[in-house]
């Protein structure tokens, strides 16, 4: 059923009893042209674009739990395209463009809100690095604004300008950056895919990958074996486990990243603000909670649960950046399992196994990538070669040295 004000009103008069499911609860068929493993944003978007752009409809998305229960459902919802390197910026700019018309495209309000993303800088070296990056963004056709301390003070009066250990000197802002309602993105893509006949199968964990003569034939799942010509992995933090089922080792480690939300408040923070002297970033959700996060806990984990030292560390940064936060209360904090890659950039590529495609390495930046990731992955699966936007995201780039290392952290996933 189309979502519109008209239909909302019409349904009101029938006591909202006629709304149809946003997506069917499909039962697995015996065979699909394409199986996407992972019902997160990326997996569902991939299925959506496969159906919409490439006319493939015999598709299943297999999700071990409930759709959106992975990182798609636990991220801090920041959408931006403020990358430095040539390998990254065109992809993320394309993603941002897709975001800008996503609600109309999906007929689902994902509450994309271009509130502006501001990265603070605290030293001349940091400023220079931001100038380099801002210029790269502009040269790629994105938007970027360098803000001086006084301009920031007017715009973000609540920051600590006067007693900070690392004084705020300015910031790099991307006005088109912002936030989106994470769950709605998942549900919107699920609904869109479902309308194009994609089977969304929840509570269906893939436990094995079937191959014959080096080519994919299907998967084993907790709901039985399912045949497939092609399989796309979009399982974020679980990528290594799935790849292992196909006998592959990946340049990926799984790490826990925590996020936090406060009690609901009247409007306080209008932008997304990122602290440059520690790991901290914050925005306010439409519901009023301040949503924030920081750095990885630092060790490999599949627990979706972090530990106290990082909680303290994140909030130290929060207080250092914005000392009026002191009396607001943390309502809840949780963790998600990040697919941290060896250079901090993603991989969207074919694998050496015929019919097996890989989408991983999103680190803590994959939410904003959702539309373009699905779009490029669908292209790669359908056409068997990369689109120009994901061409740099090759699996063999560590072998050739074509690294895409924005932070220069080297092969230590926990520092990216």
């Amino acid at each position, binding site marked *: 059923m189309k*979502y*519109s*004000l008209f239909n*909302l009103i019409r349904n009101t008069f029938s006591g*909202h009893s006629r*709304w149809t499911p*946003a*997506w069917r609860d499909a039962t697995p068929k015996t065979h699909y042209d394409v199986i996407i493993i992972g019902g997160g944003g990326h997996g569902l978007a991939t299925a959506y674009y496969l159906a919409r752009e490439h006319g493939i409809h015999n598709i299943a998305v297999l999700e071990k*739990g409930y759709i*959106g*229960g992975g990182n798609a*459902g636990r991220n801090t919802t920041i959408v931006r395209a403020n990358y430095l390197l*040539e390998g990254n910026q065109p992809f993320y700019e394309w993603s941002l463009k897709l975001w800008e018309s996503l609600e109309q495209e999906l007929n*689902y*309000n994902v509450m994309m*809100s*271009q509130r502006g993303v501001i990265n603070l800088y605290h030293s001349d*070296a940091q*400023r*220079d690095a*931001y*100038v*380099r990056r*801002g*210029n790269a963004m502009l040269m*790629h*056709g994105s938007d970027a*604004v*360098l803000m001086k301390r006084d301009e920031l003070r007017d715009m973000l*009066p609540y920051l600590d300008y006067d*007693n900070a250990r690392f004084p705020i000197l300015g910031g790099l802002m991307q006005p088109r950056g912002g936030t989106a309602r994470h769950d*709605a993105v998942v549900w919107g893509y699920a609904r869109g895919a479902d309308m194009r006949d994609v089977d969304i199968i929840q509570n269906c964990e893939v436990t094995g990958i079937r191959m014959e003569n080096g080519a994919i034939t299907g998967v084993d799942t907790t709901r039985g074996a399912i045949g497939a010509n092609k399989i796309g992995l979009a399982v974020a933090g679980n990528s290594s486990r799935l790849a292992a089922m196909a006998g592959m080792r990946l340049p990926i480690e799984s790490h826990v990243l925590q996020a936090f939300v*406060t*009690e*609901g408040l*009247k*409007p*306080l923070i209008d932008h997304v603000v990122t602290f440059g002297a520690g790991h901290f970033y914050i925005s*306010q959700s*439409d519901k*009023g909670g301040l949503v924030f996060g920081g750095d990885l806990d630092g060790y490999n984990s599949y627990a979706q649960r972090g*530990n*106290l030292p990082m909680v303290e560390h994140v*909030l*130290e*940064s929060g*207080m250092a950046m914005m000392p009026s*936060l*002191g*009396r*607001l*209360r*943390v*309502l*809840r*904090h949780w963790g998600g399992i990040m697919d941290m890659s060896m250079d901090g950039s993603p991989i969207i590529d074919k694998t050496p196994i015929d019919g097996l495609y890989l989408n991983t390495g999103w680190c803590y930046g994959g939410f904003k990538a959702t539309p373009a990731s699905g779009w490029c992955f669908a292209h790669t699966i359908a056409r068997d070669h990369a689109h120009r936007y994901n061409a740099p995201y090759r699996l063999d780039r560590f072998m050739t*040295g074509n690294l895409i*290392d924005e932070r*220069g952290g*080297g092969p230590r996933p926990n520092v990216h």
Partner: protein
Amino acid sequence: MKEAAYRNSAGGLIDRDRPLKFYFDNVSYQGFAGDTLASALIANGVHLTGRGFKYHRPRGIYTSGTEEPNALVELREDARREPNTRATLIELYDGLSAMSQNRWPSLAFDILSVNNLLSPFLPAGFYYKTFMWPKQFWEKMYEPFIRRAAGLGRAANKPDPDRYERATLHCDVLVVGAGPAGLVAALAAARSGARVVLAEQDHRVGGHLLSTSTTLDSKSAESWSDDIRTEIEAFEDARLLTRTTVFGYYDHNILAAVERLADHLPVPGAHGARQKLWRIHASRVILACGAFERPLVFGNNDLPGIMLTSAARTYAMRYAARPGSRAVIFTNNSSGYDALADLAAGGVNIVAVIDPRSDIDSQSIAQAEAVGARILNRAVILGARGHLHVRGVDVDAAGVRERIDCDLLCVSGGWNPDVHLHSQTGTRPVWSPDIAGFIPAESRQRELSIGGAAGQFDLANALITARQRGLDAARECGFMSSAFDLPDVAKGSSAYSIEPLWRVAGYHGKALVDMQNDVKETDIGLSAREGYKSVEHLKRYTTLGMATDQGKLSNVNGLGILADELGFSIESVGTTTFRPPVLPVAIGVFAGSSRGQHFSPTRYTPMHDWAVRHGAKFVEAGQWLRPRYYPRDGEDMLAASCRETLATRNSVGLCDVSTLGKIDVQGADAPEFLNRLHSNGFARLPVGKARYGLMLREDGLVLDDGTTTRLAEHHYFMTTTTAEAAAVMAHMEYYHQAIWPQLDVQYCSVTEQWASMAIAGPNSRAVLQKVLTRIDLSNEAFPFLAATEFNLGNFRARLFRISFSGELAYELNVPAGYGESLWQALMNAGKEFGITAYGTEALGIMRIEKGHIAGPEVNGQTTAGDIGLGSMLSSKKEFIGRPLAAREALVDSAREQLVGIRCNDSSMRLYAGAHLVEPDKAAVIENDLGHVTSVTYSPMLKTWIALALLKGGTTNIGKTLKAVNPLMKHEVNVEVVSSQFFDPENTRLHV
């Protein structure tokens, strides 16, 4: 000030000798010490305390504890304003002021309550279906409106003026909750001699017993509890923390608790913190957190004047405050009857008990008869009546409808054991049909629940288990003791019995499941119909359980209704995930004292005070503070640093370089170790010589650079950059310990031991010679890269002839405590040459003039070749990073490589971060050739110069390019030159 009309004249745990004045919405009232804000409001007959989140329906005090969804207020004012504070948890203090929130213009008349009328159009998730057209309207109109309407209280807009602290506690046994179960368990463990911590969020011990007239060994609950408290506190190794909520359960039995040291005071005392964060490391944990009473879901169940039965009992007994005069009880379980006598004793006239069950045990019936209340069985309340307060209820008793007037409606839907902390350990609670609630599952950590938290609602039995668990926990930690006698519990109640009722069929009005987030019973059905069937989807689609109470009241009812809708059992529906904190916790306390200047420690060099006295401006270099420049009257940074540069290049300058990392390396295999660490060779470095070294990471990119000096056959002294000092040390430790432990090498950081100063410039030798009178500093005796160690005064010092500035220069290291004195001596000695202290800016100018790389060039993305050091990769030996440095893309000659650039027009300036394009090309990425890394004005060349990373590197020398900086709306033509701008032959070094 109004009289407290609903205060009973006797009873209660309040101090009637200490009356307190307080304000709610600017009206003043009176309460007593011992009151909470909620109890004091009730004593004053104030029930309307807030408005619902979405429909702005009037709301009153619903509970007496942490689960309160409605009575949320803005407490205190100005910088101390605390939004969303639960009235039920605030201890009254004199002058307390609280405001209601989320209403306009007033609590009783709230404009947005039209939402209540519009509510049919605003079911769960309506916003996903609309507000999409026209596209621009979302950000300009809809969203700002939604945001203003959403949220509850207003945050303070000034820095929090209070202090916070953090501390760590270690114990054998942590007991959470000092209700009867926790008290007994803690006592048992403490008597065994174990180190015990007992944490209780209330300011008194006794738990729910304080709300009852229960007697133990014929003592009142409070005196029995206080006796145990006294005994526990007498143990040297036991510690009772009151006003302390344990809110987080982390791995390996680390728990987090917040102690509210001053929230019951107008302001914290001098030197006192507002709150303290405890990190508790416990060998064993006993959870005795009790249970929460469950609401019932029927029409208008959110009207003020409706509250949990246990809350009404608490107000009546503990606070001597009458929550109403004429009460109806709606209960599906025996505990509702247990409260009757206490309510009646508290002056509440109970007219009827509405019970949906057909069989009611005789004990319960007797309890009702004792207070003269009618029992209506097989009965439910269809709806409550009233506008701003409940005035009556519509009852359906086995098909017979009846209206009963009342001003208090007490509900009890059964009890939910508080499994929150238990569930945080990564396990999920399990359904117990016996109590119709979730109880703890098997433990993942060394943790057990007792009492109400374990679903044990029989006090006498709970105490027996509590004692046993306390003894067991202590024994497991190696402490033995025997059981002790437990009190006789006056037995007035029946065994707990319940028949779950998730919702009343055929109710009228709205039936709220989550009162704070305004989730209605119908929303759950809608969610299920629309495919949001998983509990997690239900939660996210409807926001059930996402409010500040995190579903403490609403979740289980919601699950029950969902299970009904889907035709599943409640256990197969399961719970959502429990997350810390158990109760919302102030951000300030997590940060403790680490805020403002205390956010991160500051490192000071030995010469810091001298620099302060001489007017230096400082710059942060990691945690260090370094003198940046030493302005003289009115100079700005550029003028000062140019003067410092010229003084150095023309005569002599002195620079504090103590922040460089310094590592002492010794041992038989020291030469071999250094050889493996560096891309160039160190094994054959002569004793008494320094050499510039380069280190790669294992992936072949540059890690760091620095000089290393051989002090003796098996003794080297290494320096690193300031930024990478810690990383290099850890890198060495890793390779030595984890990869090559056979190497006989010993090393440690000596960064802190040495004050280091660079003395540079043509007159540096002359100045130095005046101080180091006994060393021959002539070029022959002490040439470039020479190093020596010697006695100076009563200490050892080291001298190196190395140069970052490109001048004749030395680095002198003396023990840190003598740094300032030596510095002063050099300044004195240099007076005749006009010696000038220079800071990091001048240092930067000189290094760029010389084309020396630093942080912007060694940024983790560059290879040795990129930064012009390709020749430092030895082909004769193995070293870390060598194999992977050879990857095709890393040796591609088209990579961006180090060059110098300068402005053709000396009046034009350059900016770091600009990109390079051909002069006639546009600033678009297709034309991008590289970027500018480090920029300075060169006082020697009298123009702006820069280092850059440029595709093709030095093959471009002589070309004209354009440095484009669209971000700063700037561009300028530049010439590509060698990165060695000044004295490329290094003649000045060797004089």
